[in-house]
């Protein structure tokens, strides 16, 4: 009964969203406040409906209701509770429902939080959001109904794909979806601005917090996915240039560009048309990502539900939204007036370079991902575009980006001064060179290029500190005053510095990977192997059994060079019984920021194959992404974005004008 109610709620949400698409946009045209207000009410109502529907499906999973086809195919009564719950979105139908849930959450937030927005902008944006929800609700109801019944109901489910039975599934998809779908807000605002033919700093100020939030979640989602792949797939890699990873990287690159161009628009009212274009692009790439994963066009580890019929439907959605968005852009963008002027050497100029490089990287990843498909369709020739291509091309674009980042932050708005910027960065540059030289001297005989990577990472990291310190210190400014000035800086400035600091930290982590070591040995209990500065002893291999899997666990003890104990770790090979599918569970021991990573291979004559890795400072890669996300959240709390702040500022400005008149 709850299931039917959930299904019904989804249909109801569709009806509400159709109203949300038409009425507020119509109201905005007629300048009818009551009709425009309908958008907000619909947004909240559709959120309630979809949330109910999601709860109904989750309930079916929690009680293992095997009369539901979706539950049968992806759950098992003996599965731990957390994986029953995460199983809700560990499949195509459920993940689409989560997608729509996040979409309606965002629309409801726009409806509830942004009372200070211009009414017409808000109404048009909610209308566009409604249209996206209509498309995806139709998609679920027509092609991917998660509530379909099965009769007769089997006694047991077929279990969730074992690779997905991991805490990573609880975190990675929701974070990523919040990021993907959050970009729909920027898209909706962009289309709303085009519909209205008006865009200004108010628009940028409205869009920036949403973009920051979406970007932060996307960053965390990608980074979490990378860590998940690192420990789950068993060979210690963390980025594979897999088509689906590329599908999440492209919106991230576009969103990063958007984040920076919105700043220019907010501060200087320049780059308007370009910002609108990026907003459309970023969400379009999210949609393309959804398409690539689900259509069966590309094969990858993530493609858990490939079905050409669904692919055709999503292709239709893509055509309508991307094509429609770009058509509206082509038609209306010339109406938008260009804003402030600036010299080439200025903060604006630096941000233009940033946008140029990020867009080029994004385009390169797009071409690299789709080129084999296009080539095969046109000529029948089959080629592969793999990691070597992406490393070379994206790396070539990342290098100037990283080197120029600290300079850009030192340039003033309108007209910058390269000599002054260089002077302020002298210390950072010197320290970075010193760090590279020290590392080079210390690790003689190691990889030659890695110290340069360390130098670049150090330059970006220290440069982000200079972002704050150069604004706090000045001629004749003492420590105490500098501190006060630093803490008085806007939170957006601190957020920016934190995000850039994170970039530097991640680069340091990537550079350190050059010193990771790998040992491949056949071990029997009692054998020793060297792993980095540690000696690993295989103590024993024991079989263990859980409700839904069996495993062979290798227990290893680590000792330091001086013979002291450094702890133990467990690596295992699992066999999930329902699907008869083996997985590798890496044993990881974290020492500070470094890790020892062990995965078990096949049983060999005379023991078991063991791969041992020492990964120095590997955690920096993901810690950097946390700094980036924290920076974005920090910037979001800047007082100019808080609810009511623009209104109060406007009131104050009016008072000032009155006083002067």
């Amino acid at each position: 009964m709850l299931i039917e109610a959930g299904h019904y709620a989804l249909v109801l949400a569709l009806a509400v969203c159709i109203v949300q698409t038409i009425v507020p946009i119509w109201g905005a045209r007629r300048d009818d406040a009551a009709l425009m207000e309908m958008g907000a009410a619909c947004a909240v109502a559709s959120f309630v409906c979809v949330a109910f529907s999601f709860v109904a499906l989750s309930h079916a999973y929690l009680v293992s209701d095997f009369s539901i086809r979706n539950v049968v195919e992806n759950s098992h009564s003996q599965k731990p509770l957390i994986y029953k719950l995460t199983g809700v979105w560990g499949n195509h139908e459920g993940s689409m429902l989560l997608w729509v849930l996040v979409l309606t959450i965002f629309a409801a937030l726009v409806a509830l939080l942004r009372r200070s927005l211009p009414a017409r902008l808000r109404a048009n944006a909610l209308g566009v959001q409604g249209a996206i929800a209509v498309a995806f609700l139709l998609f679920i109801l027509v092609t991917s109904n998660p509530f379909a019944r099965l009769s007769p109901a089997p006694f047991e489910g077929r279990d969730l794909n074992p690779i997905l039975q991991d805490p990573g599934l609880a975190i990675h998809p929701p974070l990523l979806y919040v990021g993907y779908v959050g970009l729909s807000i920027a898209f909706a605002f962009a289309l709303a601005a085009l519909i209205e033919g008006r865009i200004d700093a108010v628009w940028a100020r409205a869009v920036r917090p949403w973009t920051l939030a979406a970007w932060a979640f996307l960053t965390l989602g990608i980074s979490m996915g990378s860590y998940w792949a690192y420990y789950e797939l068993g060979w210690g890699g963390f980025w594979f240039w897999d088509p689906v990873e590329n599908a999440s990287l492209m919106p991230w690159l576009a969103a990063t560009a958007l984040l920076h161009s919105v700043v220019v628009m907010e501060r200087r009212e320049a780059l308007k048309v370009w910002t609108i274009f990026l907003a459309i692009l970023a969400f379009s790439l999210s949609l393309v990502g959804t398409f690539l994963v689900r259509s069966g066009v590309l094969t990858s580890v993530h493609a858990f539900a490939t079905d050409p019929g669904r692919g055709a439907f999503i292709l239709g959605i893509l055509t309508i939204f991307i094509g429609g968005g770009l058509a509206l852009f082509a038609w209306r963008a010339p109406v938008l007036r260009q804003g402030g002027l600036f010299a080439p050497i200025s903060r604006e100029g630096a941000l233009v370079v940033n946008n140029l490089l990020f867009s080029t990287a994004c385009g390169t990843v797009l071409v690299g991902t789709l080129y084999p498909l296009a080539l095969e369709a046109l000529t029948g020739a089959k080629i592969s575009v793999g990691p070597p291509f992406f490393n070379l091309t994206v790396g070539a674009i990342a290098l100037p980006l990283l080197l120029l980042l600290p300079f850009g932050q030192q340039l003033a708005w309108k007209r910058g001064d390269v000599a002054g910027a260089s002077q302020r960065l002298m210390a950072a540059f010197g320290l970075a060179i010193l760090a590279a030289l020290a590392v080079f001297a210390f690790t003689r005989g190691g990889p030659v290029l890695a110290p340069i990577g360390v130098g670049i990472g150090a330059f970006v990291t220290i440069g982000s500190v200079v972002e704050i310190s150069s604004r706090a210190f000045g001629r004749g400014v003492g420590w105490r005053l500098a501190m006060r000035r630093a803490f008085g800086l806007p939170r957006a400035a601190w957020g920016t510095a934190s995000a850039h600091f994170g970039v530097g930290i991640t680069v340091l982590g990537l550079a350190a990977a050059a010193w990771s070591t790998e040992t491949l040995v056949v071990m029997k209990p009692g054998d020793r192997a060297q792993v980095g500065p540690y000696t690993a002893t295989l103590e024993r291999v024991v079989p263990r059994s859980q409700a839904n899997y069996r495993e062979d666990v290798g227990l290893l003890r680590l000792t330091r060079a001086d013979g002291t104990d450094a702890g133990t770790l467990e690596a295992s090979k699992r066999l999930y019984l329902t699907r008869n599918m083996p997985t590798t569970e890496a044993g990881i021991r974290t020492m500070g920021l470094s890790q020892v990573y062990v995965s078990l291979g096949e049983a060999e004559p005379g023991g078991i194959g063991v791969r041992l890795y020492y990964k120095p400072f590997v955690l920096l890669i993901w810690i950097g992404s946390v700094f980036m996300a924290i920076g974005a959240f920090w910037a979001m709390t800047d007082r100019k974005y808080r609810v009511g702040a623009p209104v109060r500022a406007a009131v104050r400005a009016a008072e000032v004008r009155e006083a002067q008149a």
Partner: protein
Amino acid sequence: MIAPARLLCAVFMALSAMAPVVTPALAVQPDEVLRDPALEARARDLSAELRCLVCQNQSIDDSDAPLARDLRLLVRERLQAGDSDAAIRDFVVARYGEFVLLRPPFAAHTLLLWLAPALLGAAGLFGVWRLARSRGRDATEAVALTPDEQAALAAATGTGDRDPA
């Protein structure tokens, strides 16, 4: 499943066209490892750039599939026979087609692929240049006031010399 690569390489590869300095994490079995470390290193570099044909987007270096193992052994056999890296690559391509190369060759049909970053960057630069030029022209042309504005200015200055703020 998926193949190993590192963003790190991205940074390094940009610095030079050298092969990745990082040893990739592997699915190589202990019994496959060659005695000569130099040959083994070449074998690893080669197999990281060869695609496992029965897996999804994975190099033979990471794959546990039997076919990948056969290919790894083949690569090592050719290496021990004294073949150059290019000769081995040609040999594998002759057998399995270009699909096996994870680094697509630079040829007529991949021209657009390899030139994509340069073309995109150039297109972007051209756009920026045009924008800057039109902006510069706007700035110089915009100084002249329209008659209406001149009238308004005259009216404003005529009514008094108070600061218009």
